[in-house]
């Protein structure tokens, strides 16, 4: 084994209170030449202020169209051990819960086949095995499946869905996020492993409007828990919060976007008809307030990063569905939308951009989804309405053509 390269710039980053990725690479480099070369290459980038990776080629495991990102350095002579340095995306368990045993299994597999570097986790949610050679891909995959793991998505396929911890560790989960995530992952294994769409297709499941997986910003399909009956109030506990120093008026009532709360110093009144289910009051007084019992989810569509028409947030498709009970109906609606986008979307056109191009009304009509005011924050401001029919002379006045 070669020595660790000299990396004065990187070494700066081993200092300080925050855990150091450089220390991690160095530690892995004790047993991996790949990591030694990576250190050398990275030091060079730090000196030259430029990356040294080439565009990936198409590499992968047999029968799968995704799950591996091919990567090659542009300095293979100097850093031969990372001439290949591919990434595997491994579908994480829903909610990112592990046992120590599972972690060790993963570590062992990666010690055997790759650099020993990981991301826990990638920003879509996968376990990332960072850096190996083409010929190791298939053996890694075999060991992973033997251990019960499978690859995640990449390319124009369904991407690895992810979920907040939900019912596992949160009192606010309005549906079973981890179950929905798991079921969705299993139902769409084919779509996940074999690119078949115009572009990527991401799902994220958040148990309540706090949206702890950032689904509304980062998923084509964002499922966000909510409720439809009244917020539960324990007035005595509200009073306790107030007595403990919480300024219920300034910090809660004034922050309510529905402007639907009243506090007289003793009792907190909520006009639930105007509650927007934003979570703020509940967040601030978790012991006193809770979402109601009629729980379910809002389904939204279309978030994405800026490339190319600008970043989008997801927008409402289904204001409320009891997704735990009506999961099939959820899938049915999703599939109707997915089909239209897959058939008519342009190459590299995310569903959000597609909807903007064809028009939300046309899109939902084609997907046989009722048009409802919840889909828009406000109706159109411009008078450029495409009326679809007009009367012809001779038509009965009552009758549209």
């Amino acid at each position, binding site marked *: 084994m070669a020595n660790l390269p000299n990396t004065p710039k990187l070494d700066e980053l081993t*200092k300080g209170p925050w855990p150091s990725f*450089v220390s991690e690479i160095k*530690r*892995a480099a004790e047993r991996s030449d790949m990591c030694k070369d990576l250190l050398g290459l990275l030091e060079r980038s730090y000196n030259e202020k430029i990356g040294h990776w080439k565009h990936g080629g198409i590499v992968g495991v047999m029968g799968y169209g995704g799950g591996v990102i091919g990567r090659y350095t542009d300095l293979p002579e100097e850093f031969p051990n990372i001439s290949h340095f591919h990434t595997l995306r491994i579908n994480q368990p829903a909610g990112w819960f592990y046992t120590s045993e599972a972690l060790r299994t993963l570590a062992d597999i990666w*010690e055997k086949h790759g650099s020993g570097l990981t991301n*826990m986790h990638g920003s879509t949610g996968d376990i990332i095995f960072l850096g190996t050679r083409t010929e190791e891909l298939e053996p890694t995959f075999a060991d992973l499946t033997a251990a019960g793991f499978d690859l995640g998505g990449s390319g124009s396929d369904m991407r690895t869905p992810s979920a907040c911890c939900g*019912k596992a560790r949160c*009192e606010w989960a309005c549906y079973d996020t981890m179950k929905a995530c798991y079921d969705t992952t299993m139902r769409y294994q084919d779509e996940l492993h074999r690119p078949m769409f115009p572009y990527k297709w991401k799902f994220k499941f958040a148990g309540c409007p706090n949206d702890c997986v950032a689904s509304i910003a980062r998923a084509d399909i964002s499922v966000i828990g909510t409720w439809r009956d009244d917020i539960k109030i324990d007035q005595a506990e509200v009073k306790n919060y107030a007595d403990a120093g919480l300024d219920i008026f300034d910090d809660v009532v004034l922050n309510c976007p529905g402007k639907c709360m009243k506090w007289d110093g003793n009792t907190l009144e909520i006009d639930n008809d105007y509650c927007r289910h934003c979570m703020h009051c509940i967040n601030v007084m978790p012991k006193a307030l809770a979402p109601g019992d009629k729980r379910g989810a809002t389904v939204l569509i279309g978030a994405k990063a800026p490339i190319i028409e600008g970043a989008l947030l997801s927008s409402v498709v289904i204001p409320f569905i009891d997704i735990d009970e009506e999961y099939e109906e959820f899938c049915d609606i999703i599939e109707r939308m997915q089909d239209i986008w897959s058939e008519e979307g342009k190459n590299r056109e995310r569903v959000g951009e597609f909807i903007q191009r064809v028009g939300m009304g046309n899109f939902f009509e084609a997907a046989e989804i009722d048009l409802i005011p919840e889909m828009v924050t406000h109706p159109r401001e411009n008078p450029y309405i495409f009326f679809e029919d007009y009367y012809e002379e001779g038509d009965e006045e009552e009758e549209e053509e």
Partner: protein
Amino acid sequence: MADDKPKRVTDIGPPHYEKFLPPVIKDNYGKWKYHEILKPGVMVHYGHSGDKLFTVRAASPRLMSIDKMRDFADLADKYCDGYLRFTSRNNVEFLLTDESKIDPLIEDLKALNHPVGGLGNSISNIVHTQGWVHCHSAATDASGIVKAVMDEMYEYFSEMKLPAKIRIALACCLNMCGAVHCSDIAILGIHRRPPRIDHNTLERLCEIPLVTSSCPTAAIRPTTTPEGKKSVEVIEEQCMFCANCYTVCPSMPLNDPLNDGVSIWVGGKVSNARTAPMFSKLAIPFIPNNPPRWPEVTDAIKNIVEVWAANARKYERIGEWINRITYPKFFEMTGIEFQKEHIDDFKFAGLTYHRTAQLVR
């Protein structure tokens, strides 16, 4: 052919999450009552059953060696019957039922250099991407800036002295894999030089019609080089450095040591709490790359955080604070210079113009 080989296992999906849940979670699944933050990085969830689940959250660099994985596994065995999890922001969380084990766990974590914190009104871990460690597109490094910023912001992670949560994210190019577009503070790697075209390889590696149509500003035209090679040319004044052409065509790299760097964005959020989710807005158009510690970037972020912390109301996230005080005040209070780059000129630009006489003095 696949059929000839011994049967491969495929499409099994991830392991079922139930396998990884500790008994206290299985028992109280969906039956949690409320939670309390006990101290920085430590919270307890009470079940309707009366059960308690303690969570200790620790920082992680995300880019981890398998050795660190094994360290975490050891700690989980020692304190949590082997159960742990990671968060959506790449922190690690240990799940305990025995309150007395919390402090020893924290000591062990500190010994491993993993500070505990990130709960409540603090700065949590920075969601980030690959950078120079792995991506061909990167205009800056990811992990390096994250380390430098979090070293500087450390006290805000390990204490809870801010008016509200701050979520920082980093993406090393406009593809925004770190989905920084809705962050309280976003660090975004940007190019500033139009693609340079490798006429020698372009015809071979790229589809010219795909390349020309990839450009949102129609800056790319097909051309034939003097040597007769089919290629493309870029009208430089029309290029805004999005690198979409490079994504579809490796012969058009934008990476450039002199012109790549970092931009800073503020005021985004994701939660629906109080205000609707918001996009982040440009705060500082460009800071040159200055590894290994990007001091100008860390200073800029520290400044924004501290001006906000000193002036915001309780629960007012950065974007909510700025919306109250208005952007002119934000620029005045932070001392950030307002420049032409701040003025939007993309398709929704008109809607960002200040269309009211409501102005602070």
